[in-house]
């Protein structure tokens, strides 16, 4: 059976908007191999770079925040980004688990 383990990120997104913040919604739309979070997992990012929720186990969140700030700056309504397995260089963003994920970023307006 499946239960709707809803993390209430959309409710939080609405609260942020009511508080006059700009919000970008990031959603995991596809996964390949072993990935830390399933399709449909979400996080939100505001124009200050505050974020809530998650799209991985902490592996790519910082890069997602950067991308979200980027689309706010460029006034792009949406963007699709992908992350693959990380190599061993220490500062490279990627998934240590060896999986791949695609994330869809969209501004709420």
């Amino acid at each position, binding site marked *: 059976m499946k*239960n709707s383990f809803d993390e209430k990120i959309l409710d939080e*997104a609405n609260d942020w908007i009511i508080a006059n913040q700009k919000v970008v919604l990031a959603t995991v739309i596809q996964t390949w191999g072993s990935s830390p979070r399933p*399709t449909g997992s979400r996080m939100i990012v505001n124009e200050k770079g505050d974020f809530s929720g998650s799209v991985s186990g902490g592996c790519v969140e910082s890069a997602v925040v950067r991308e979200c700030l980027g689309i706010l700056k460029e006034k792009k309504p949406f963007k699709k980004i992908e992350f693959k397995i990380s190599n061993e260089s220490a500062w490279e963003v990627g998934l240590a688990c060896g999986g791949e994920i695609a994330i869809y970023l969209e501004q709420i307006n």
Partner: protein
Amino acid sequence: MQLKTLQEIIKKKENKSEFAIVTNLATGNSEIFEKGKSLSKDFDQFKNQINAIYQSKKNEVIEGTDIFVESYIRPIKVIIVGAVHIAQYLVNFASSLNFEISVIDPRGYFATEQRFPSMKIINKWPDEAFKEIETDSNSALIALTHDPKIDDPALQHAIKKKFYYIGALGSKKTHENRCERLKKSGFSDEQINQIHGPIGIKLGGKAAPEIALSIIAQLVAETYKK
């Protein structure tokens, strides 16, 4: 996503509706899909595939397209009988797991709003209370009073309605007596054995929040067994 769509989604979740969000990843358009309602031109050509994903309660991109479908389903109903100390912790744990909880207790001094703020509390005997809650094989019962007058009618209802999870608090001895009573009432061993008693997985703790944790852990485990 438009703010209007976001707010509509939040409203639908509050009303415990089942629906899906469909997004065109190439244009950025998104809208709400509901059974029996028509979709805009952007999505209408994919309605059969959208419906198939929605029926299987999945989140996925339709193969070979840019259409992402995310399904929202009704949370599982959990009925707690006994507005006791453990129930207060159960309600807290369960809130972050998104179960839809009702608390039944005919004893007015237990079933107070002060003890269970912003909760659905039914201050009635189980037979009466179950007339107000629609239940089926996707429902769960947690019986906590270990008073046969209150627990037994609730357990009987849950067995008859084939709840996927039925748990009852009480020692091994209490549970043996309970099983005897149910047998005398005409329930089969197979039906009676569905009851998790003593309730919860073995964690070792005896404090109210520890017992609540062991119950909620068992409930989640049983949810995914099905």
